């Protein structure tokens, strides 16, 4: 029964994928979209069932299907594990997934390949479920690469545009760099523990099996590299902003709410391992903090509405990694959830705006949409407040927990994180002001067509905004349901902060910081009514920021270009060289042959002479040899 239900949970989206890919075109857009949505909804329903069950029984559901891989010293089963962590993830994956499917029915309605869009989206949900449900690292890896594939397919959904295809390719390849790390990590773990099952490994660690700590740390580091790729951390983050080439629902689902949090999921999954590698934890914390700051700084000056959100996502992910690095897994998870709500809402809201403006994404050509798009605006506002970390919105609670943990561990990290938060507040409100306030700056044509989006679009927005509003309730400071719920999957007990003076002071500081950010944005974009300058006019540090610290250019210069140059070198020089060695041998023999022809000169006299010479030399040799 449980097996069948679990399979239903897993395979429903896959069925949706199959139906859509094979029959989608014939079924028509509405049917195709509905089908796609329903299959995910089914998964959500099943998840809910399991969630309630596990929440009450506290016993994880384990499903083992068959033996998949056989190594010399370990076996990998095709098995699934529905425990607290995976169910939590499944809840928002399928839940938000369903909402975004609903949204997409309307959003993608004009696209000729809508059935494909839904197919890919279903496939994504399917792989995401595998990633989350797997009972060992390799099953997770299937999902891990699978979601990467879907991300590739969806970023490049409008495949006629080669720039989009480039972005898709970039995403896939950068993910693959991380994946290599992940794989190496799996190798080491498999070698150390003779298993890649979560339970086996955690039991082994809990019972104090003798393991080489050095290798263990390396394994943890490798896994973290994998997480970096998927969750867009320095140095592998540059694909995420580019990934905004995909349709907006994709950005919301994959590149904000679910897929990019896979790294956090993985590290939380393996928390027992990371606990043993404090050095790696430090690295994670530092990388997370720096990522959050750098991404936030870049986000300050971007003009593309989705790019801003993308950098904001990177920055928020950085904060989550910071929490992971500090060993506060439950806090990271908390932020993942709240972030999923408000960031999905923000992306969908921006999608709604883009939809209304027929594809316009540059904020300099927006403005004044507040009046036309009421629902979009309100939901957007709620989410913006949430991400900025203002109480009582959900973001406040999760972000504050992170800041507080950082404060207790390392003041420098806390300062960095706080700075990032202030910047977040600034650029989010900059975004809000530029988009919704003042007057419309686009063309007359666009102005004429401005409209609020249809209900299929606004409905998910409302739900998500509501969740963004109240999501913080699951882990209120002091009495956290989440910490309690997650306790069985975490090796160490949750970090518990006393609600003392320091705590309140920190909360206060965080709020003040957010208000400062908002204030600056307000003065600049409402009071002074500034509009961001054209690219050519940007100078100084702003230009560096605007150009994203030239990281892409640097990567191109130090990796891609040399690689191409090397390829060309290999192709034109070494291949020719290798080839000429072989041909050279042949040529040498042929030359010898040509030379030999002159000896064979046709003269009987010479032939006889050679004959006699041979005769004499043989006789002489025989005598000498004697």
């Amino acid at each position, binding site marked *: 029964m449980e097996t069948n239900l679990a399979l239903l949970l897993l395979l429903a989206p896959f069925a949706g994928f199959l139906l859509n890919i094979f029959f989608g075109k014939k079924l028509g857009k509405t049917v195709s979209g509905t089908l796609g949505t329903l299959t995910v909804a089914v998964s959500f329903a099943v998840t809910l069932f399991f969630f309630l069950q596990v929440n009450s029984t506290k016993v994880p559901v384990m499903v083992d299907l068959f033996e998949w891989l056989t190594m010399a010293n370990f076996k990998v089963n095709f098995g699934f594990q529905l425990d607290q962590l995976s169910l939590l993830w499944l809840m928002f994956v399928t839940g938000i997934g369903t909402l975004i499917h609903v949204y997409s029915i309307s959003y993608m309605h004009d696209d000729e390949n809508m059935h494909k869009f839904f197919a890919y989206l279903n496939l994504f949900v399917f792989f995401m479920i595998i990633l989350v449900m797997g009972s060992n690292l390799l099953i997770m890896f299937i999902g891990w690469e699978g979601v990467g594939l879907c991300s590739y397919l969806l970023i490049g959904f409008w495949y006629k545009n080669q720039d989009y295809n480039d972005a898709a390719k970039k995403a896939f390849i950068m993910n693959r760099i991380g994946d290599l790390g992940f794989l190496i990590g799996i190798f080491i773990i498999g070698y150390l523990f003779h298993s890649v099952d979560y339970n086996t490994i955690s039991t082994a660690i809990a019972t104090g099996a003798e393991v080489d700590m050095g290798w263990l740390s390396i394994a943890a580091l490798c896994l973290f590299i994998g997480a970096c790729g998927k969750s867009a951390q320095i140095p592998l983050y540059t694909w995420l902003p580019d990934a905004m080439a995909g349709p907006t629902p994709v950005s919301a689902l994959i590149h904000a709410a679910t897929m990019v949090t896979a790294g956090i999921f993985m590290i939380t999954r393996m928390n027992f391992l990371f606990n043993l590698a404090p050095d790696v934890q430090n690295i994670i914390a530092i990388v997370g903090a720096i990522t959050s700051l750098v991404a936030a700084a870049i986000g300050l000056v971007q003009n593309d509405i989705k790019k801003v959100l993308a950098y904001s996502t990177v920055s928020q992910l950085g904060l989550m990694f910071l929490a992971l690095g500090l060993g506060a897994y439950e806090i990271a998870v908390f932020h993942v959830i709240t972030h999923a709500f408000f960031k999905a809402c923000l992306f969908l809201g921006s999608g709604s705006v883009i939809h209304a403006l027929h594809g316009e994404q540059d904020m300099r050509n927006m403005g004044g949409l507040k009046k036309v798009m009421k629902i979009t605006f309100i939901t957007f506002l709620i989410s913006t407040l949430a991400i900025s970390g203002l109480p009582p919105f959900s973001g406040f609670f999760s972000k504050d927990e992170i800041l507080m943990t950082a404060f207790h561990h390392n003041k420098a990290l806390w300062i960095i994180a706080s700075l990032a938060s202030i910047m977040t507040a600034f650029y989010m409100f900059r975004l809000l002001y530029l988009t919704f306030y003042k007057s419309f700056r686009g063309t007359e044509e666009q102005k004429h067509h401005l409209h609020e989006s249809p209900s299929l679009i606004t409905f998910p927005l409302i739900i998500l905004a509501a969740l963004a509003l109240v999501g913080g309730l699951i882990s209120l400071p002091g009495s956290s349901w989440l910490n309690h719920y997650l306790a069985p999957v975490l090796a160490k007990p949750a970090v518990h902060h006393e609600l003392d003076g320091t705590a309140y002071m920190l909360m206060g500081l965080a709020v003040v910081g957010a208000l400062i950010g908002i204030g600056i944005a307000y003065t600049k974009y409402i009071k002074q009514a500034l509009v961001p300058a054209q690219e050519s006019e940007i100078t100084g540090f702003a230009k560096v920021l605007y150009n994203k610290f030239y990281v892409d250019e640097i990567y191109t210069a130090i990796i891609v270009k040399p690689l191409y140059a090397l390829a060309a070198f290999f192709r034109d020089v070494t291949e020719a060289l290798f080839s000429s060695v072989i041909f050279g041998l042949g040529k040498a023999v042929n030359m010898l042959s*040509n030379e030999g022809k002159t000896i064979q000169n046709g003269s*009987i006299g010479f032939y006889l002479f050679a004959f006699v010479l041979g005769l004499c030399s043989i006789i002489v040799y025989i005598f000498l*040899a*004697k």
Partner: protein
Amino acid sequence: MYTLVAIAGLGILCLIAEIFNLRKAIVPITILGLLGSLVLNVADYGKTLSYFNNMIITDTFSVAFTSLFIILAIFLIALTPVVHKEHKAKISDFVAIKLFLLTGAIAMVTFGNLAMFFLGIEILSISLYVLAASEPKNLKSNEAGMKYFLMGAFASGIILFGIALIYGAIGSFDTGVIYGALLENNNVPGWFFIGIVMLTIGLLFKIAAVPFHFWAPDVYEGSPTLTTATMSTLTKVAAMASFFKLMTTLNRTVPGSYITIISIVAILSMTVGNIMALRQNSVKRMLAYSGISHAGFMLMVFFSPTFTAGTLFYYAAAYTLAGIASFAVVLFVCTNKENEDVYNFNGLGKTNPLMAGILTCSLLSMAGIPIFSGFFAKFFLFHQVFSSGHVAIVIVAIINSIISLGYYFKLIIAMYTKESTAEKQTVPFTYGAVALIALVLNIAMGLYPSFALELIFR
């Protein structure tokens, strides 16, 4: 012994048949006669008999080689009427000369006395001089005949001198006596060995080994193609077999330096032959050089002569069968052509797939590609040389095998990838039949190598 007499008699019969205007019957009768002598010959198999005061000794070695020669002669004679269809009057002469040539060849492997050997080699040579120069109006043929004759006569002189020295040292021409004398008395005069060396050199000339090979490409090219076929198949292996027999019976006290010389000559022959063959335009010249390299390969049997008689026979059979098949195709392609250059073969794969296929297979066999007998021949040879401990020469042989692919494939490529220059012709029955039978025998030997390999025993 009766084989020898029968074949000589057959030759005379041919000449008489011409007198009685039985031209048409000549070739069939000869072939039947040869088949008859083959039977006669095979009847002697397994026995060691001697005739005429040991002038002729038949053993398994001689019977095996005689059979091979007879079969080759049948092929060559079968080709004669088609080749000379415009000079019907000549047929009887050509057939008779070939029969005499065969007689010489058989004498060369059945001799029990150096006099018989000398007669055999001279009968063979003189017949060949005639055949080489058999187109008196063709300057090329003249030149070939002249070159071959001059150098051949020179070589005969050397062989004769060698025989004289051997006679002087032992006091007998009888190989048995010489063998016995060597067994009893190791202290033979020094000139005995010079005699052996001079005999060796004369035979190296006949098998066209470097540096006594210069005549071969020129003579092969200039001679009428059928004669070239005879030279490169029958003559070459007859000389080789004779050489082998001489050395195994006479050369009991082989000093190391003799083996060194053989190995140097073998290496030179292989290498020079293969390298020179690479840049030849004339197919006949190319096959001449290829023949030189094969002579080099065959010389490797002398490293362990006690065991290699079977291998030599196998190699000789494989090489000659492939040679006959290729020359049949060359004859077919180059009839009425000015020369035998490679471009004449362009597009043969399209215009005449059967002949192209046969030539391809024969060339592959010569190159030593399984499962043609040429491969097995090389394998058995390498195997034996390897067991005798001469690894270095095997490596050289292998490198040469690789080089040889270059020119064999040049011809194959021409046949299959280049556009045809000539009209499609129908294949005369004899060419097709001879080539096909030779190829089938070749492949059969490849599939069942034991038969030929174990034919010779003591």
